[in-house]
């Protein structure tokens, strides 16, 4: 195989070729670094490329594999990681000018785990400022490989762009209100928000402690499975991390969906926030799930459309408290929409925060009750495909205060449940559309099974963005 073709392999296929010694980790890493050097000016997906370290790690992986010490499916696989994660000796900005010169003394556990698994970290990916809004970038704005005049979705925008543009084999994002699934759906990728606590958050710049999760953004379901397998597991440095043993998620892939019950959340499908073509595309995916053997029924989650408001309160208040010193001393160093969000969060009354948490309790119970009857719940990830890039507009009325009402991810963040976005077609503009699959806490394997069956029954994951 021509080495320039290596970046277009899935991480799973690349992994198998590395294990069989048909491809060397150094070849693969060099191929990705060459693509980044020649193409990333179109996409702005990386904030820092770790060329020398990546080549050294790839060389080490090659030597280990040659000596019979293969560490598993991520060994030698080139990965990109969001700049929200500490990286030892490497600038970690969190997408903010405030941390432009911050160089951590240790790796976040997710990066340490990737290294333990033998993965090669290519660099740190671009993101919205501190991952607390969907749009504001303090460095260059990432561009969507499906249409470089369109936005990628955020906050893990660079991980989305890099993965879709074949500038890494797989990547890590962080999802507080949808920041993995949002770029995954808009960039035509697979993105998984794991169960809260499944993946350590040590060394992850904080958004909302009860909602933050780290997970994969990948080109295939298998790639997401092997990426998650490398980073999940208990971490003594994160007291809230799960102690449940991590399975090999690849074991969940394959087979039909006979016997599975799938609930379609009606409130989202009937919402005026879903464009007609998106509704049709996602409805078609439900039909495919039925053809694969699942029983597909409608289910009502009455508070589901209120998830956006309840989570918006939490997403404003908690970062404002965590960053209160910077807000007082460096307010003008923040980008426009983050500045307004943090000031808003600083002033929200305690009663509002308390009510939002009570609504969360009720919503979570409704979700969990539905998941007693259904193995997974499905809905569109977003009511719209990727939107054209625009300047961060000022808020000129109450009606223009929210820019993310069409994003349907937050129901699972509030419910502490895992959820995945998987490509299911295209909108009227030819931009990708995502099917969202949520399950009860700890049921990642069920999500992988459903998503993989759907993926293998369709061809969406085989399509290349024209810009890549």
């Amino acid at each position: 195989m021509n080495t320039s073709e290596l970046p277009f392999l899935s991480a799973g296929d690349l992994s198998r070729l590395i294990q069989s010694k048909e491809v060397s980790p150094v070849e693969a890493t060099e191929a990705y670094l060459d693509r980044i050097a020649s193409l990333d000016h179109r996409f702005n997906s990386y904030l820092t490329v770790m060329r020398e370290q990546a080549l050294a790690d790839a060389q080490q992986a090659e030597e280990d594999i040659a000596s019979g010490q293969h560490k598993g499916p991520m060994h030698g696989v080139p990965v990109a990681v969001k700049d929200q994660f500490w990286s030892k000796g490497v600038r970690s900005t969190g997408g903010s000018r405030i941390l432009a010169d911050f160089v951590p003394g240790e790796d976040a556990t997710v990066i340490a785990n990737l290294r333990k698994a033998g993965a090669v970290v290519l660099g740190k990916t671009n993101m919205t400022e501190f991952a607390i809004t969907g749009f504001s970038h303090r460095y260059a704005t990432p561009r969507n490989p499906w249409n470089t005049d369109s936005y990628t979705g955020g906050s893990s925008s660079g991980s989305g762009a890099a993965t879709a543009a074949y500038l890494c084999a797989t990547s890590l994002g962080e999802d507080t209100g949808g920041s993995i699934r949002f770029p995954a759906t808009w960039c035509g990728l697979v993105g998984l928000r794991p169960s809260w606590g499944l993946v350590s958050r040590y060394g992850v710049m904080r958004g909302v402690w009860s909602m933050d999760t780290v997970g994969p953004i990948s080109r295939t379901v298998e790639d997401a499975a092997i990426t998650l397998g490398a980073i999940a597991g208990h971490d003594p440095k994160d007291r809230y991390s799960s102690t449940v043993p991590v399975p090999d998620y690849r074991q969940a892939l394959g087979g039909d969906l006979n016997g599975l019950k799938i609930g379609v959340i009606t409130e989202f499908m009937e919402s005026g926030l879903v464009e007609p073509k998106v509704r049709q595309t996602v409805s078609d995916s439900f039909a495919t799930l039925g053809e694969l053997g699942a029983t597909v029924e409608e289910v009502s989650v009455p508070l589901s459309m209120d998830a956006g408001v309840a989570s918006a309160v939490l997403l404003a208040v908690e970062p404002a408290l965590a960053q209160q010193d910077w807000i007082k001393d460096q307010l003008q160093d923040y980008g426009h929409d983050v500045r307004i969000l943090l000031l808003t969060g600083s002033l929200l009354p305690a009663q509002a925060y308390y009510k939002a948490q009570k609504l969360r309790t009720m919503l979570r119970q409704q979700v969990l009750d539905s998941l007693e009857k259904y193995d997974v719940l499905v809905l569109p990830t977003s009511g719209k495909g990727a939107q054209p890039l625009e300047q961060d507009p000022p808020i000129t009325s109450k009606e223009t205060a929210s820019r993310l009402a069409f994003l349907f991810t937050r129901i699972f963040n509030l419910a502490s449940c895992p959820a995945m976005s998987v490509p299911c077609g295209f909108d009227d503009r030819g931009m990708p559309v995502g099917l969202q699959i949520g399950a009860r806490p700890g049921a990642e394997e069920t999500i992988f099974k459903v998503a993989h069956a759907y993926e293998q029954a369709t061809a969406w994951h085989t399509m290349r963005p024209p810009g890549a």
Partner: protein
Amino acid sequence: MADLTKDEIRAMGHAVGLEIEDPELTEVMYSLNALLESLDAINPPGLNDVEPLPIILPPA
């Protein structure tokens, strides 16, 4: 509920050690009023009977 005015927003900021002036003041006013209005409109039956539980702890 009545919208908060700029003067009220400014006073709330002062109470938490923030001196908020335009152009931020106007945008924060819209942002805060929009959020409070949306939240005020959500009153499902039984809300007063639930506790504000932020998470389900992962299995030990």
